[in-house]
Each structure stands twice: as structure tokens, then as C-alpha cells.
């Protein structure tokens, strides 16, 4: 009996020792913690893999959560780099008085107004700002009023803290926190919203340019009589109106491995990922 007791005791000791070892090994590596916008996430995830391949002693942990989470985590020290796809608000600066946010622009993203492919194919290929506003405020509830079939509009919003929503609402309503009483459903990440638009045959929503595909079509925006398609060219020359900067935020000027990583994303191989793999627009 006593022998068994001892045995159990040694097992517990062994496990504790193992856990201890693992944590020491992890502490030895140079780590970078990144969190924030799902719009910036794919770029950072991809470049972090490439960066870690070159620098085997570096560990980069990338989490999502939205732009707000990016700022918040940098502010309270839970992350070294915040991925933020909008301007930092005055309220956020006020919330973290000790923090000195430094912003590096790593790319440009356009937010497309997307519709289900069935709607796009049946004729709704362009929308004006006014039409989008009326759809989101509930004044237009049927696709037939904007040149589509006689179907109810299924209007999809995003969680209020999402950077994509801020950019979209700033353009449509002139207020990034605008309430949208015409909304039928609230979604979260770009992936989730893409799925919901694709599964419906009468949906309208907002998505980062990179998430447009054959099931989820971005409509052209009519601005001052000009039809502006959501294309890389139009975003690069500044014509497309619903666009924003993708930024990495640090607390104070970055140094050490954090600064090395940001420089890597701003360098040629990083910018290649931004432009070629995810359809964003590079800054260099």
C-alpha cells in the first residue's frame, strides 16, 4: 500500500517537473504576441511563418478578435503588436493614458458591399451610397426597388466593434457607429459573414475586398455618376471610396524582434504577401 502511495507521488512529481521544463524552454525563445483584426490576420499569419523559418529562435503567436481587441491588448500589455484595420479612436487613447500607440501602415484594404451571387446575376451590379443607406436603415426592403428580383432583402450587419463595419458605416452613414434598423442578422468575422452571404440567395453585406469570390460578389459603387468597381487598380489610385489602411500598432517605438518583424512585413517579401496572396494593396 505504501509503495503504491509513493508511486503516485513520484508520478505527480514527474509531471510537475515536465511542465516546468516546457515553460522554461518556451521562455527562452524570443516571442512576439500579435492580436487583433481578422482583416490583417491572414497577412500577419503568413508572414510570421516565413519570418520564423528564417529566424528559428523566434516564436510569433497570432490571435484574432477584431481591431478593438488589437488596440486593447497592446494597451494593457497582452500583445506586442495589435493588428488594427481602422484609425485608433480618441476613446481608446483616453482608455490607455500610459500607452503611446505607434502606427505602421502595412497595406490598404477596400471594404466591398457584397451581395449573394443570385442577386448579382439577376441584375444588381451597382448600388449608390443612398441605396445602401436606405437598405441598411430599413427604407428599402425588397430587391425590386434597386433593380433586382422581387425578393425580400436579407440585410447582414457586423458586430459593432469590427473595423470593417466602421469603414463601411463611415462611408454609408457618415458615422462609424451608426445604428442600422434595417438589419436582419449580425455576423462576426469576415469568414462568418462570407458563409452567411454565400448560403443565402438574397443577402447584402460588407466584406473586406479579399473575401470576394464567386458566391459572394462585390457590387460597383456609383459615386458622382461614375461607376467604380472594387478592383485593385481603383483602390490603388484612390478612386474606390470605401477603403482603409491596415496597420500594426505597438506601444511606443518598436524595438528588438518586434521591430524586426514589422520591418520584414514592410520589406519586399512581406509586401508581396500583402499584394499577391490576399489581394490587398501594398504600400511600397
Amino acid at each position, binding site marked *: 500500500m505504501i509503495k503504491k502511495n509513493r508511486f503516485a507521488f513520484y508520478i505527480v512529481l514527474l509531471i510537475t517537473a515536465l511542465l516546468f521544463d516546457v515553460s522554461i524552454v518556451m521562455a527562452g525563445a524570443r516571442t512576439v504576441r500579435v492580436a487583433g483584426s481578422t482583416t490583417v490576420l491572414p497577412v500577419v499569419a503568413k508572414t510570421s511563418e516565413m519570418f520564423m523559418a528564417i529566424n528559428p529562435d523566434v516564436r510569433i503567436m497570432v490571435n484574432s478578435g477584431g481591431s478593438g481587441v488589437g488596440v486593447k491588448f497592446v494597451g494593457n500589455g497582452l500583445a506586442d503588436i495589435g493588428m488594427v484595420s481602422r484609425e485608433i479612436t480618441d476613446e481608446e487613447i483616453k482608455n490607455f493614458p500610459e500607452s503611446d500607440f505607434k502606427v505602421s501602415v502595412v497595406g490598404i484594404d477596400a471594404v466591398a458591399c457584397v451581395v449573394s451571387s443570385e442577386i448579382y446575376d439577376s441584375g444588381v451590379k451597382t448600388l449608390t451610397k443612398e441605396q445602401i443607406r436606405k437598405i441598411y436603415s430599413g427604407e428599402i426592403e425588397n430587391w425590386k426597388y434597386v433593380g433586382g428580383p422581387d425578393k425580400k432583402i436579407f440585410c447582414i450587419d457586423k*458586430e459593432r466593434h469590427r473595423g470593417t463595419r466602421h469603414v463601411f458605416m463611415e462611408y454609408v452613414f457618415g458615422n462609424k457607429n451608426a445604428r442600422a434598423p434595417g438589419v436582419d442578422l*449580425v455576423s462576426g468575422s469576415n469568414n462568418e459573414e462570407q458563409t452567411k452571404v454565400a448560403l443565402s440567395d438574397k443577402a447584402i453585406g460588407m466584406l473586406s475586398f479579399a473575401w470576394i469570390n464567386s458566391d459572394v460578389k462585390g457590387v460597383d459603387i456609383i459615386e458622382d455618376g461614375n461607376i467604380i468597381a472594387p478592383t485593385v487598380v481603383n483602390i490603388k489610385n484612390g478612386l474606390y471610396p470605401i477603403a482603409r489602411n491596415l496597420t500594426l500598432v505597438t506601444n511606443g517605438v518598436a524595438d528588438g524582434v518586434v521591430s524586426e518583424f514589422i520591418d520584414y512585413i514592410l520589406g519586399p517579401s512581406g509586401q508581396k504577401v500583402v499584394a499577391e496572396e490576399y489581394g490587398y494593396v501594398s504600400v511600397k
Partner: protein
Amino acid sequence: MFQLNRFGPARIIFASSFFISISIIVVIFFFLITNSLPIFYLEGWDFLTGTHWYVGEVYGALPMIYVTVLVTLLALCFAFPLGLGTAIIASEFLPERYRLIVKMVMELLAGIPGVVYGLLGIVLLTTTVQRVFNLIDGNCILTAGLLLGVMILPTIMTVSEDALRTVPKEYREQALALGLNHSEVVLTAVLPAAAKGILGAVLLSTSRAMGETISVMLVIGSLDRIPSPFFNIFTTAQTITSKLGREASEALGVGYHWNALIGLALVLFIMSMGMAFIGDIIVVKEKRV
């Protein structure tokens, strides 16, 4: 096996686990109360009765609380008849070998993570619900209720089955001796005797349904509003857990938004713990008979 010496290492380990477990619950409760106090100072009772939730302006939790109750009730409506039926067949009619297989399968179901149910729900259930009821979209209270119903089915089934099995053999024998047939024995003798245990099963699974987050979040649509009319289950809405799941990381630790979310969590904690507690008391009492 282990000999629990008064001061032996095993006893120390077990005793410390005991105190750690207890203190975790106390700490959580204390944390919820202290972190939600500011919102109760700010909004007072309006926090529980208000219907509008706009971050930075007003926090009203009623839509979330109401929809949580509604979705849970729906889930019970689906899961209770199915679960109880399965339990009765398994316990009273199936031979021992098949009974164990059914039970094993049910317990396997209980182990599938919520997110898997949620993803299946998005792809299969929302589209089906939309087609069958001809809705504008399949993300609605009904879908969430159905999904939760499937998720709590194993709990209802296994716990009710346990309750039925604990009914002493003599009950059945005496009922048979009175000339009742097999079905009548179950309905008039076994079921009433197991009623308390079955009620316990319902309460336990209710608290599980209330606390389920990710699967509900993926199919409920996440719009903070009380359905109109209030029994309309074909509309998007928001439960407490889906609200927390969507906004908690955004609000993390700062300001009234955080306090309000923790306030919601406190409401859920009290509802869910209350259910589980009552359920436990009933089941434990039943087993001691």
C-alpha cells in the same frame, strides 16, 4: 487501494484539490459580483428590464435574458419527449446488451464539442429550416432551439434512464401480478416512481442548454431584440451566451461595457446554478430512497 494516512501525501493532495475546487467557485461568484456592480449603480433595475443595448450609451439586458429562456424552453420541447422515450425503451424494453449500446452511443453524443454542432447547424440546419418554413433566412431562434435540443438529448436520456433503473424491481413485479401488461406497468408503476429523477434530468439539461455558447452563437443571428410578437421563433435574436461570446474580448476589463457583460454573466450564472442545484437536490434525494 490508497490508504488515506492522516498526514500521508495522498491525503494532502486530495485535501488541497478539494479546497481549490471550492475556492474556484467562490472566487468566480465574487468576481462576477464585484465586476458587475458598476452597471447596477449606473442602470439600476433598468439593466434587467431595458430593451436597448448600445455600447457607450445604454445597457438593457432583457432581450438577451428573455431569448435565453425561450431558446432553452424550445430545446426542452424537442429533447424531452425524445430523450424520455429513448430512456423508457432502453431501460424497460431492450435486453441488457442493446441497452448498454444505446447508452454508450448517447454518452458519445454528449462528448461532441459545441462548435462541431454549431458548424453542422450552419451548414445543414439553417438551410433546412429556411426551406421548410420558407423563411428569409435560417438563422433564427427555432434553429438554435433545435440545435440545443440535440445537444441536451444525451443528458436527458442518460439521467432519466438512470432514474428508471433505480425503481425497485418489486414495483414492476407487483404491477405485473395485478394483471397489467408491460406498457401499463411502465406507465402506471415505473414512470411515477421515477418522476423525481426525470425532473432532475430536465433541470440538469436546462442548465447545460442555458450555458451553451458557441453553437448558439453561430446560428441565432445575434440581433439584440425581443422577437415581435414575443412568441415569434422565426426571427434572429441574441442569447446571453452569444452576446458574451461576441463582445467579451472587445470589452475586456475596461469600462461599463465590461461591467454590463459581467452583469449578464451573473444573471446567467444565477439562473444556471439555480437549475443545476435544484436538479442535484432532486436527483440525490431520489437515489437515497
